[in-house]
Each structure stands twice: as C-alpha cells, then as structure tokens.
C-alpha cells in the first residue's frame, strides 16, 4: 500500500494522519510537499486537515492552486482513491473535484467536539466498513452548502458519504453541529473514488484518544 500525504504550508494534521495510516496499514506513508509535481505510484492520496495558507481569503482556496493539486486532480480522475479531511475537504471542494461549498458554521464559531456520523453510501471503498461512528470535528467552515440542483444530483447518485446523526444513528437537526444541508458531513465524487469529510478519523483511531471508530474508514480502503 503506497499512501501519500500532501503537505501545504499551514497543514497541521499531516503528522496525525501519517501516524494513523502507519498504525493501521503497517506501512509508512510518504509526505509530499505541495511544490512537488508528481504522485506516481500512489494507492491512496490524503489531503490532510489544518489551515493551509492560514485559511486566508477562503478555506482551501489558495492551496487549491498549488502545483501538486493538478497532479491530485489527475490521479483522482484516473481512479486513485483520494481523501480530503477537514481542510483537505475544503481544498478538494475548491478544486471542483467535489461538488458544493463549505461555508461558515451557522454558530459563527469554531467547533471542536465529538460528533456521531453514519454512512449513507454503504458501498464505496471508504464507507463500507463504517456504520455509526464517533469522531471529532474541529472547524470553522464546515457548513455544507449546495444548490438545489447539485444537491439533487449528489443524493440521486448516492454521493452522500456521511451524515451527522445522534448516538442512535438518527439524523436530527439537533445532531447537526454546523448547519450543513441535510446534515451532510462528507461526500463522494461521481465515480466514488474521492471522499471529502469534515470529521477527523485520524484523531479517533486509537483507544488512548478516547475512540477508535475512525479506524474503519482507513481500514475500508487499506484492506
């Protein structure tokens, strides 16, 4: 398994995700600086969380113009699995690999806490092992928005990966932490090889951190 973690100036979950991958897959992921231009030989590409370029202007916007991103898009279109976590999700949205937009949380404040999510799509390589999972979120702009048309398309095409829910798995407005449309926490591309999600599976991948549910997402792909 050859996994690559893209590092932008201001990424800050790059190490965390590398640790999780190493623990789960047993093999060392390769860290790729954003100025590099090749991603050959990748079985999995991860765009990690953090504040690339300080999240200045718009979260993910500046990173989405980095040299490496052209290669990420190319690989994604060739079918290589790509995961964007939190800021990585925002970056993938800015590249248009994923549909819609992530706007400011409706509370207008940063939120760091555990949430529950459940997989809507049960078949993709990322979601097949996860049912209801507890995982932390930590973001300011995770409020998923899409036009009616786009929303219909991603729903009809089974592109909704995860929704925020309560402990019992019910998708309620109370369990929506940030105002996302239809409680959407993560989505897939058309072809289902690109996943973007706001929760941080890498922070919930060992019992010492209070929760292991994040493992399933990595295990799904790595197995």
């Amino acid at each position: 398994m050859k996994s690559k973690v893209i590092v932008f100036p201001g990424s800050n979950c790059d190490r965390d995700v590398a640790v999780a991958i190493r623990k789960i897959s047993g093999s060392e992921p390769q860290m790729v600086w954003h100025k590099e231009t090749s991603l050959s030989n990748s079985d999995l590409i991860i765009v990690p969380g953090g504040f690339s370029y300080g999240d200045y202007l718009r979260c993910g916007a500046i990173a989405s113009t980095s040299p490496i991103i052209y290669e990420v898009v190319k690989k994604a279109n060739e079918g290589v699995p790509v995961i964007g976590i939190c800021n990585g999700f925002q970056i993938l949205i800015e590249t248009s690999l994923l549909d819609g937009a992530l706007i400011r949380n409706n509370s207008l404040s940063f939120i760091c806490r555990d949430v529950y999510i459940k997989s809507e799509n049960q078949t993709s390589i990322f979601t097949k092992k996860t049912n209801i999972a507890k995982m932390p979120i930590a973001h300011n702009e995770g409020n998923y928005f899409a036009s009616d048309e786009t929303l219909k398309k991603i729903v009809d095409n089974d592109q909704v990966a995860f929704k925020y829910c309560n402990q019992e798995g019910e998708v309620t407005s109370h369990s929506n932490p940030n105002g996302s449309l239809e409680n959407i926490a993560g989505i897939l591309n058309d072809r289902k090889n690109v996943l973007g999600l706001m929760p941080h599976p890498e922070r919930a991948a060992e019992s010492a951190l209070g929760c292991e549910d994040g493992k399933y997402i990595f295990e799904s792909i790595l197995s």
Partner: protein
Amino acid sequence: MSISNWKYNTEQSLVENHGLKHDEFESIVEGLGREPNLTELGIFSAMWNEHCSYKSSKYWLKKLPTSGDRVVQGPGENAGVIDIDDGDVAVFKMESHNHPSFIEPYQGAATGVGGILRDVFTMGARPVANLNALRFGEIDHPKTKHLLSGVVEGIGGYGNCIGIPTVGGEVNFHPSYNGNILVNAMTVGIAKKDKIFYSAAAGIGNPVVYVGSKTGRDGIHGATMASAEFDDDSEDKKPTVQVGDPFTEKLLLEACLELMKEEAIIAIQDMGAAGLTSSSIEMASKGNVGLEIDLTKVPMRAQNMTAYELMLSESQERMLMVIDPTKESLARNIFRKWDLEFEVIGKVTDTKNLVLNMNGKEEACIPINILVEDAPEYQRDYIIREPSKRIKIIQDQFDQKTIIPDLIEMISHPNLCSRKWIWEQYDHMVMADTIVRPGSDAAVVRVHGTNKGIAISTDCSPIYCKHNSFEGGKHAIVETWRNIIASGALPIAVTDCMNFGNPEKPEIMGEFVECIRGMAESCSYLNYPVISGNVSLYNETNGVGIYPTPAIGGVGLIKDLSKTMTIGLKNEGNIICVIGETSGHLNMSQYLSIIKNKEEGSVPEINLEIEKKNGMFVLDCIEGHLTLSVHDIGEGGLLIAMSEMCMAGNFGVQIEVKKEFLHAYLFGEDQGRYLIEVSEKNYEKVIALAKDNSVHIEKLGFVGGTDLKINHLNKVSIAQLVEKNSEFFEKYTGE
C-alpha cells in the same frame, strides 16, 4: 527638530512620556557620559520599564525556590526546562497580554498566544499544549461580554490555526477586573535535553540574523505619540495595534525547528515586548559581547521608518539569531523555502556596546552593561494588611431543604459552571496526543511516540489572595499541585504570571510580597519549584486595582499513561470516599459569595504537611490501580466536586452525611481534600493504606442511579445538573 539637538531640560515631558523618572534619567546621563538621543531614550525607556526590567519585582522574585532534581533551566531564559526522563525535557512558560487584550480583545489575546509560543520554540522545543488563564469583570459590566467573546475567539483563532492544542485553562469573573482584564497564556513544548537552544550571543564577527515577518509600526510605545518629535506628522505615524499572523508563525515554527536540526544556530531569541531592542540587548548581555546592527537592513513593511521606530516596533512573528557563518546559505535556504524573511542585519562585536547604524550614520551607541546591570531595581515600600478575620456562621440560618436549589444555583454560576463553550472553540485534539481533554482536573498530553505524558493545570484564587495574600499565594501553587495529582501525575514544577496593581502603592506591594512568600512556602515544601514566569504590574484603572492574581501553571509527569486518572465516575456500585478532613469552612467560600452575596470571613488555611501526605496517598492509590476516578475538592466545596464527577461520568450517586450542619460540610472549602471512586473489592485495601499513612478518609456514598441523592431526602437528576451547568456561556454570549 533634530534628534541630536534635543535637550532634556527643554523637553522634560519627553522623558516623562517615556515613563522614566527624573533620577532614572540622571543615571542614564551619568552612565553614557552625555545625554541620550531620542533613539537611545526610547531604548532605555523600553529596557527600564517594569515589563522588561522587573525593577519592582526582581528583589522579591529571588525568594522563590527555582531549583530541583529535574530542573534543567530555571528562570532567566525564554522559558524554563524540566527533565521528563529518557533524554526528553518539557519547556514551558506563562505570559500576560492583559492591556493589549483590553484594547482589542481578539488581536490582543491572539498575539499573546503567538508570543508565548515563540518563547517556547525559541528554546528548541516543539509546542504541544497551550493553556489560558483568563479574568474578566462582572458579567453585567457593559464591556465584559465583548471582551470575553473576543479573547476566546482570539486565542482559538491563533492556536487553532497554528495547530497546537489548547488543552486547558481557567476563567473567573469578578468586579475587580472591570477595568483591567487578565489574559495569561501558557505554552508547553517538548525537546531533547541535549538540543536546547539559548540566547547568549557568541563568536566575535558572527552574523546577527533577522528572520520572520517584516517590521511595521505595530505597537510602538505610546510615548512616541505624545512626543514633540511627531507633531508635524500625520496619522501615518500613529502606532498601530499588533495584528497576529498565525500562519506566518506556523512557518516560522517549522523553519526554526528545521534549522535547529542543523548545527547552525549559536544563539536565538524571539522578538517579544520591545522587539528588536530587548532581543538584541538580551543576546548581547547574556553573551557578554557587543552587537552592531545596520538598521537599513531590517526588512520593513511600512515606509520611512526611523531608527526609533525600528527598535521599538512590536511587530509579531520575528526572531533574532546569531548563526555559524559557514551555515549562512543553508539557513537562508530553509527560511526561503518557508517564504520567510532572512536578513543578516549585523554582527557580534567585542566592544560590549550596542551600536546602531542607519544609512551610514550612527544612531545609537550604548554600553550593554548600563542597559542591563545598571537598570533600576527598587525595594518598594510595602504594607502587609491583616488577613481577614474569621466570622461566625450560625447553622440556624440554613435550611437543609435549600441544599439542592443552592447546588443548582452554584453550578449554574459563571464562576463554577462548565467552560465547555470556551474549550469547544479551541482545537484541543490536534496533534492527536491529547489523552485527557479539558473538563477534567489537569489536562494530559502524551509525549509523542511514547507511553508517557505530561499533566498541566493553571490555577489561582484571587479572592483568597486578596483577603489573605500569604495563604492565597500558598493556595495557588497547591491548587495546581492537587489538580496534577488528581490526574495521576507527579507534580514537577510551575511557571507563574504575577498580575497585580500599582506597585508604588504600599498595600499593593504588600500583596505582592505576601503572595510570593506563600508561593515560596508551598513550592519548597512540595519540592515544586518555579522555573519561569512573568510579572504584570500596574493593572489599575482610575486608581482601582485588580485583586492580586498570581496565576500558576503547573506541570507533572505520568510515566505510564495507563495510570491516567479522570474525574468522571466509572461504574455503578463503586464507593466514593473523601480524602482529607472536612471542618466545614464556609468563610470566604463560593457558597457565601454566590448564594449569600458576601465575600467575607477568613481564607481557609493550608497545612502543607497534611496536603503533601494526602496528595501522595492519592497518587499511591492511582499508581496501585486502586481508584477509578479522582477529583480534587476546590472552589465550591465537596458537593460541587461530587456533581462534577457525576456529570462527567453520567452517573448518579447516593451520599450519606451524618453531619448536623449539612451546608458547611457540603459547601465548605477546607483544603487538602479529594474525592476518589473505588471498587467494593479495593475498598478495604484503600482504607488500610490510608490508616498506614495516617490519612483521613471518609466513606461518602455509592455510585448509582441517575440522580444525585443526599441522605435519601434531597435529590436532583444528573440530566438537570448537566443542563444547568452548561447553560450560562451560550445564553450570555448569544443574547
């Protein structure tokens, strides 16, 4: 008016505006053998102000114990360093950003976090945890809400972006902070013991390098505004508020740590308060050398900056280094990779002078020793106030039926309610090593890649410090010690942030002296030295000063993380015990303050011998896997602590208390106490161990059900407690 023609006699106010007293100015003239020019005056003013020179506090700070087996570096460097085994060290410090946060809460707090982070990574440590000790005025004060929201957002804005978890802190509301809020930020970092970096410049001829952001007119001392020099200039020259740039700080952090892996840095110092002035002088003084700087080389953001402005600017995210000349291009490339400024601005000299040139002209030449060794030091007059006297509290005034309503009122109160609204705005899990999150006693952060961790807690009870400064000082130290014990760690050392009013007032100076005396007593007895700290004086508005607030940040070590303890109850049927004796000290308690609206009586006293015995007993129990949860009993007393354990674990409890004066037992603030949860199986063992160690232990009740029940009479559901406990902040700030 040209700078060199400026005369003290005709411009006396200029000296005053620089905060220098007449005799201080005289000693400058004597030292230099001439009058200083404006740039030099600015430099003296910055170095000799309270913040940099510690002129009122130095004498007293020396009374604090600063050494110990594990102390690698005590006070005097950018941060203190302790040994945490296996060649690892923890590097930490706390610092105030009170005044800037009052002026502009978001940026003030944000740059406070940025500043303390730099203090820690300058030493070669990767920061792994941030904490913040906050004090605001009363909640009805018109400014409080705005300040609270702004400060919390600013701390989060900076810490979240740079990707260092904010794992704890404290917050209080009290009218004494109406005009002067306190924002104290603490950072803990981890380094290798043989890879610590210091600030002493060395190597005559070695290059002095400026790295980081460009210099603008940020935060230049207000004195410049009042000076005649700027009369004919427009708005342009107004000093501006410092704005934090956490993204640049993140780059600076990574670039510095990358360069530190090479053998390139000889000395390094962050530019904090008084920017280039204090950093260059500090490096020269520590190394007993001189520095020559060409100010023209300083990267500038604004146009037409003068030598004066360049030296006094407090632009953020900058560092000064002396590097090995053979590594210059390697160093330059690292900073270039991270898109940061890298400029050789001068060199180390053997003159022991600070020489500043600009456009080929000498702008200043000051012997370093005059700036540092000859800095004023005062033994200010002080008066020690009598500690407040004990008052008699008569049982008849209390009705047992009010216990539950009183409890609810107390846990809903801003000073005792859940701080979840605050810590949820902080990323407290980034770096994936936060083992105990905020909401327990001390936070626990794993040392990356190992199975050991450090426990960290900040504390202080200003009410105690006001009414009995000696006991208050003792208490602030002990409170962090207890919190660290309760998380299963061995307390090792502390940092402090001494926030006080105007030291020129003998009563305030007396508070300072007594707090120090109390702190020193606890520190020595508990073998818990002070390894770094900060003093913030003159926290006064219109003659009204804050309560004495020696905020303490304590750090402890857990060698085996499987022995980490949290406060949440773990299982039905377990037994709750109280460690330590309860006499029912309601004087000066949160109960009196919240329920009876009275701040009176005597401050509870700490018996250090008992304190240590009880703490070590609790730690032994934890080490022996005899406890399932532990919580120290702090402000609000036993019942508040019990409720917090119930809420955190989502379990009820049945308490049996055979005391007549129930209120005093449940809400009194006797010291040296803990609540522990033990299984039935281990109960006898724990009792026997307590007996062996002559530790006072009482059985309080059982874990079980969904209610907190006292003597089967009074009860409240945990769900209701949680609701009441978590209501305040959201409601208050949402209005």
